[in-house]
Structure formats: structure tokens, C-alpha cells
């Protein structure tokens, strides 16, 4: 217990050091920085009851090269519905785009899947925040994901953010309820209030829809292939 406490406080000290002013003691224009950010950390009113969902990342690095962790998931009272982790190396390759390569692990819903990941993330023309990633897994599995989001400034404090994500799989994965082809879309619309840059509470809607074989698998299990959810949460970073 004591050791854990020490570990936690040592970790906190490292985080404080890397995110804070001390990181810049060298006076460099290219300091080593740590950023932890959660674009979504929210309550969802799902068809299966209340859920906690998150999508966040942490990076450690400099202007060009960063070590990047990404996580997303959803938990209900009973179970972890979805939990995904990515460990990536990110490198700035152009003014607006980063190349990201590394590993993705799906720990839920049922059977763990490992993937190699390669993708780009950045700002597309029109100020669309864009993520495009291809994944290659064991046993010849393939997958791809495209995600876009746009921050519409209603005022300089009130922001409406639509987002859209598609997932595609090359092979059926019945154990995890996935059929080949475009498996699902997730569309979100969140109304955010910038309390501070680092602290942005929001409310919104999230709509998930399954397609094709994925949809048939879900419906065969008695689930809903489409679910419109009310969400409320906090975007934060440090």
C-alpha cells in the first residue's frame, strides 16, 4: 500500500514536472511537454442503461516526435462494454498532419484483439479535425477507421461540435459481434461551453448505428442496431 502511494506521488510529481513550467527551465523553443486530454468524458443514456464513456489521449514529446497513448471505452454498472488502448509513435509530417504508427489493443467486448496501427491525424481543409487509421490484426484481420469533427463557434465560448466516425472490418469476428464491411457509425453533436480552455462542460446527443453483418449479429442477440443517446460530460486537458 505504501509503495503504491509512493508510486502514485512519484507519478504525480513527474506529471507536474512535465506539464508545468519546470519543463521549460532550459529556455528551449522546443521543450519536452506532457499533455493529457479527454475530448469526451461523459455520461450516456444508452439502451442498456447509464454508461460512462471516454475518449482521451496523452502525449509526451516535442514539436516533431511524440509518444502517444489513446484510449476509448464505455462502462455500464455491470460491465466494461468497450475498452480500447493504442500506443503510438506520432511524428509531424506536414504543417497540418501527424503520422501515427503503433499498436492497438481491443480488450472488450469479449475476446482480446491486437492490431498494428498506421494512420494520420490532423486538420483537413475546412478546419475538419480528421483521423484516418488502418489496422492489421492477427489471422489476417483488417480494419479501418475514419473520424471527423468540426468546432462551430456559436460564440467564442459556446461551441457546437458535430462529429462522425465510421469503422470498417475486413473479416467477420463473431465472438466480438463484428461482421465484415462497414460495421458501424457513431455520430455526435455536442454543445460545449468553454469555461476555461482546459475545462469545457457539454451536453449533446450521440447516435450509434450498426450496418450489414454487424447489424445482423447484434439483432440476432436481441440488441438494438441503432441507439440515440443523451450525453453530458466534460472535455478537459492539462
Amino acid at each position, binding site marked *: 500500500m505504501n509503495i503504491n502511494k509512493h508510486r502514485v506521488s512519484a507519478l504525480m510529481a513527474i506529471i507536474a514536472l512535465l506539464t508545468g513550467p*519546470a519543463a521549460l527551465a532550459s529556455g528551449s*523553443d*522546443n521543450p519536452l511537454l506532457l499533455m493529457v486530454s479527454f475530448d469526451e468524458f461523459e455520461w450516456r443514456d444508452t439502451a442498456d442503461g447509464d454508461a460512462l464513456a471516454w475518449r482521451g489521449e496523452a502525449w509526451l514529446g516535442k514539436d516533431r516526435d511524440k509518444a502517444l497513448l489513446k484510449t476509448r471505452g464505455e462502462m455500464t454498472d455491470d460491465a466494461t462494454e468497450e475498452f480500447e488502448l493504442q500506443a503510438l509513435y506520432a511524428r509531424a509530417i506536414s*504543417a497540418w498532419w501527424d503520422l501515427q504508427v503503433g499498436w492497438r489493443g481491443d480488450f472488450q467486448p469479449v475476446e482480446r484483439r491486437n492490431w498494428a496501427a498506421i494512420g494520420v491525424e490532423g486538420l483537413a481543409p475546412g478546419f475538419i479535425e480528421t483521423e484516418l487509421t488502418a489496422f492489421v490484426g492477427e489471422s489476417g484481420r483488417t480494419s479501418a477507421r475514419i473520424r471527423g469533427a468540426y468546432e462551430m463557434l456559436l460564440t467564442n465560448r459556446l461551441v457546437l461540435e458535430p462529429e462522425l466516425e465510421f469503422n470498417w472490418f475486413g473479416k467477420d469476428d463473431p465472438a466480438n459481434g463484428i461482421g465484415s464491411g462497414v460495421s458501424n457509425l457513431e455520430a455526435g453533436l455536442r454543445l460545449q461551453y468553454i469555461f476555461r480552455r482546459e475545462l469545457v462542460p457539454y451536453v449533446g446527443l450521440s447516435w450509434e448505428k450498426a450496418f450489414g453483418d454487424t447489424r445482423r449479429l447484434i439483432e440476432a442477440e436481441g440488441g438494438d442496431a441503432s441507439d440515440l443517446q443523451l450525453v453530458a460530460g466534460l472535455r478537459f486537458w492539462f
Partner: protein
Amino acid sequence: MTFYKPKSGQDVFTAGRPISRRTFVTGAAAGGLLLASGLPARTAAARGSVQAEALRGNSFDLGIGYREVNFTGKPRQATVVNGGLPGPVLRWKQGETVTLRVTNSLARDSSIHWHGIILPANMDGVPGFSFPGIRPGETFTYRFPVTQSGTYWYHSHSGFQEQTGLYGALIIDPIEPEPFSYDRDYVVVLSDWSDTKPERIFSNLKKLGHYYNFKQRTFGDFARQVPDQGWGNTIQDRAMWWQMRMSDRDISDVTGYTYTFLTNGMTPDDNWTGLFKRGEKVRLRFINAAAMTIFDVRIPGLKMTVVAADGQNVEPVSIEEFRIGVAETYDVIVEPEAGAYTIFSQAIDRSGYARGTLAEQPGMTAEVPQFDPAVILGHADMGMAMDHDMGGMDHSGMNHGEPNKPAVDHSAHGGMPMSADMPAGRAALGRAGMGSNAPIVHPETEQGFQVNMQAQSPRDQLTNPGIGLAGNGRRVLTYADLRNLNNTPDPREPEREIQLHLTGNMSRYIWSMDGIRFSDAEPLPLKLNERIRITLVNDTMMNHPIHLHGMWSDLETGDPDHIPRKHTILVQPGSKISYLVTPDMPGDWAYHCHLLYHMMGMFRRVRVSED
């Protein structure tokens, strides 16, 4: 220690009592500027003033230390000289040799750089440039002859100490009588204060480039533009910004969201006040000592006659407003008649203002004007061709189909006859004072993640007072107005020209020259006593005040016989500007953008040597 007796009539400085670095001036007792000239001391004892007392002479003991300040209701630690924010006004005499013993009581290295002063390289005060910096507890003695006169300033060149208060005014009285007369003499130091530590400001900008910008374009602006201009024009206008992924409201990186703007170390509420009597001529020595803020300065009800720029006398020009880039200085003379006048210095992005007052009696105030409308960038500010509209409304001739076409601007200088004795190779350079004829060539090093814009057709903006100022109904100073009061000091034609590009990526918050940040750059070699033209091309959408240490920047404003000398050149967004340099002091010199959070990257080491 030697002091000069105040000259009658034109001096409001205290006859400099030496201040030990241990006897720091405390809060309300400061304000040395107002103590003399027979004014009651209480006028200076304004709430909030923490300015140190003025010092005069040729031998000084200065102490760098911490002090607590409170500009916002929250106590914060500042880094200061002799306990003051600003530090003491130092008054030197042209032709003397000054000795300054600077003791550092901070917990980290410090330094003082004498901004705009021509001196040997090892006295310039830039750590790593023939000068090691001043370690904690140590004293460094600066000693150098003072060859120039005018209004200058000093500041730390270590870390972010400038942001936290380490600056002050420097005045050098001329040997010859001034070519203009005045009855009173006030220093007006403009600056920006944040309760947030500068290291945090920098990391916030690195993580989110628009962290401090709460004047971004909104959906409402779009909704208003459509009925104004129609869908077609609106979409056409927006399409380029969408394509470029740039913001037309990207004016200042750090804003009034975190800054409190100060006049002589006093907030707008505390209202620094300079007194006058009817009929007097008042000289105001404006110094922009801010870390990041460019100010637009006016005094409603008064015309200002600009008599000096960056310490050097210019042909007097009567104006109503001027823009002052970070580190620039302007001396103006005003003739207030009665009552009170507000010295209104609004930040370029209109997110706040510094305020002072000229008054007949202590306590008198004048109305504080409203902000001017928010500044919006146009296509020209991206260096796009043929957009002659400053407000960004007329985009008829926009040229964005030919991104790599080099643009040569012959509009201003094409027809200039070359002098007959000019060697053929030099003729192409264009005449000294008239600026560059060279084609704009973007170096390959600009390619990469660190640069997100290139000005394809950068324009000469000498006659433009700057973004947001043109056409505001007031007579605003432009660089074209600046003409040396005397003949061009070095009338030689340039022997060669170098073109440097000011580059950056606002979104990643990376700044550089030619796409190369300081840490990766080779020194820029200059030959001793050559006459060289430097042309700066601004490949960003921000104004950058570029400061060359150790030698003058002779700004080519269009009159070869009266080229004005400056130490800091404000380069407008998407523009180009040229100046001539005579490197007459050997050694390594700093050359950089004076915006504090751009500086570390947008920086070059200039190496002046015999061969």
C-alpha cells in the same frame, strides 16, 4: 558616482540619488518620474505604482531581484531592477563612458541587455554571445562609451524575465542641443503583465495555439456576411481561409484574456498621470517594453509631433496615432491646452488597453475612448497578390492558382534610375534607400511541418500604417513618414543583399527564420564594414518586430538622402521590408523577433568578422 544637475525647465527627473540594491523602493513611495520639477510628491504616490526612482550619471549600481506586485488583486512575484517595475530610468550623457555594476539576486541566471545601444559585443548582455550571463549572487560590470543619444530601454535577455518585469527606460542626453524644444519630459513605458507564469503561457500556446484568442471568427460573422455579400462572395472569401486553415482573427498570441496592460507600471485604473501647465510643450518618450503586445497609441484631442524613432531624430511629422511594435520607441511632442487628456494605448487585437493621463491638476481625468473595431486580416496579409483592400472585403483579383510563382514587386522602384558609377552587378540591387528589387525566393528549408504559410506576393507596406489602422479617419504614422533629420549616415550603395523569411506554424506554435529554428541554424556571416541590405519577407500572418543587436537597421523608407536609423523593425503580415546595415562592430550579435514567445525560434546569430 557622478550626477548631472537637472537643467532648468526641461527636466523632471530626480537628481539621481544612488539606490542600493538592498533598499528597494516599496509600492506607493515610488514613481520617481514625477517627483521633480516642483511638483508635489503626492502626485507620484499613486496607488499601485512600483516604478523605481530615476538614476542619472555615469556610474550605477543595479540590483536584479524579486518583489511582490499586485496588479489584479492577486499577489504575484515579479523580477525587477532596483525593486521597480519598470526599473529605474537611467539617464546617461552622450560622449561619456558608463559603468554599470549589475548584481543578480535571483535564484537563476540573469542579464541586462541595453536595447538599441551601439557597444562592444561583450557588453551587449546576451547570454551565450560573448557574455556568460550573470549567475545568482554575482555582479557583472558593464562599461562602454556612449556614442549616441535619445530614448532607449534595457531588459533582461534571460529566460522569460522580461515578461515578469525586468525592464526599464534608458535616456541619453545629447552633446549638441536638441533640434526641438519642450518644457516637460516624460517617459511612457508600455508593457503587459500576466498573473500566469510565462513558462505556463508558453506551454499553453504549444498545446493550443489559440489558447488566449477569444476574438475568433464565429458562426454569427458568417451569418452576417451572407446577407452583406451574398452566398457566392461569402463562400469565395471563406474558401481560401478554409483551404489555408488560417484564421483571419489571428492578431495576437497572448491577449487581454491574461494580460493587464501597464503605463509606467500602472494599470488603467491606477492611471499614471503626467502634469503640465498651460502653454507647455510636453515631450513623451514612448517605449514598448511589452513581452508580446503591439500597441496603437493616441491621445484624443492632441496632435502628436513625432521627433524621434528608436532614439534617432527624424524630420518632425504631425500625426494623431501611431502603432508601436514591441521594443520600438517613439518620441513625440504634444501641446496640451487645458484640462486632461487620456493617453490611450490599445492592444493591436483590441483585447485591452494601457492608459495614462496628461493633466493640469492631479486627479483630473479625461474620457477613455472606446476600442476601435476588431482587426480582421485580409488576403493581402497572407501575401496574396492583387488584393488592394485592407479590410479583406474585395477579393476580386485573388491569385491562388499559382502557388509557386515568384513575385517581383516593381511597383515602387522599377523606374528608379541607377547612378552611373554603380557597378553593373550592384545595379540590380536597387538604390540605397529605395528598397529591394530582388525576386522573392522561398528557400527549400521552408518546406516542412514547421511552416504553414508562404507569402507568394509579399507587398511593400511602408505607406500602410498597419492592419486595422488604414482608413480609420485619423492620421496614423507610417514607416514612409520616417525620414532621418540628418543626412543618411552611411550613403554607400548596398554591396549585396540577403533575403530572410520570417516563418512559423501558429497552430504548432513553432517559429523560425527560413524555416530553420535558432537551435538548428548556422550563424549568419556579415563582413566588417560592408554595406548590406537585408530584406525580410514575412511568411506569417502576424506582425513581427525584428531587432538586430549591435548595429543600426537603416530602414529604406524611400528617401536615399535621409534614411532613418532604427533598431527594431515591425514587419507586417505577408509583407516585405528592406533595410541597410553597416556591421562596424566585430563579434557575435543576436538578431531576432522581439515577441518573447517567438524569440527562441525566430532568432539568428549574426557573426561580424573581417573576412
